């Protein structure tokens, strides 16, 4: 099963509104990352939050992490049409001395102009 699961699966908002996406995971992590994917393109790294951090900001992005609930949220403030994309969370898994990164199924965000 997926380590990271995002919800909602799809989100449609008006330009200027805030968008919130959530990610839940199952096992302990060292860090959690959020990525954006525009249609037909590769994934682009947005932000990394470590397990000992609770909140992190980058421009219009705000990420929170609650390790007790094994969940994270990504908030995009004052959304723009250009924010239309799919957003994925990824969690690290340390197995047999190696790192694997597991991605969720993503949230499709549509920002209407």
């Amino acid at each position: 099963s997926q380590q990271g699961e995002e919800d909602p699966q799809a989100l449609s908002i008006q330009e200027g509104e805030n968008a919130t996406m959530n990610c839940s995971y199952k096992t302990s992590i060292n860090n959690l990352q959020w990525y954006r994917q525009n249609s037909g393109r590769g994934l682009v790294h947005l932000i990394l939050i470590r397990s000992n951090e609770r909140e992190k900001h980058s421009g219009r992005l705000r990420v929170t992490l609650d390790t007790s609930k094994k969940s994270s949220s990504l908030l995009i403030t004052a959304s723009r049409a250009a924010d239309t994309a799919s957003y994925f969370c990824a969690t690290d898994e340390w197995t047999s001395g190696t790192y694997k990164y597991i991605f969720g199924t993503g949230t499709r965000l549509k920002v209407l102009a």
Partner: protein
Amino acid sequence: DAGITQSPRHKVTETGTPVTLRCHQTENHRYMYWYRQDPGHGLRLIHYSYGVKDTDKGEVSDGYSVSRSKTEDFLLTLESATSSQTSVYFCAILSSGNTIYFGEGSWLTVV
């Protein structure tokens, strides 16, 4: 962009033929990954490598093999392609800052 190049970017092949996708990186990263992306499934890990000749299976490794004979190249082989392997394949590396960087993807269609 971490200097990741995937080839080919697009390929159409027939069922039963072998296919090899290549991932090339220029920055000497130790970890490399192959994912496939399908609608409704997000990205699923196929195989990964943590050094030359050191590879391991991901969650959807059946029907795939990999090789890493030098640091910069990680090859993904479909021994006998099936229609269920029609997908977009992404290569990725793990940077020293624990950030994953992706290639632009390889679109594979098996007919």
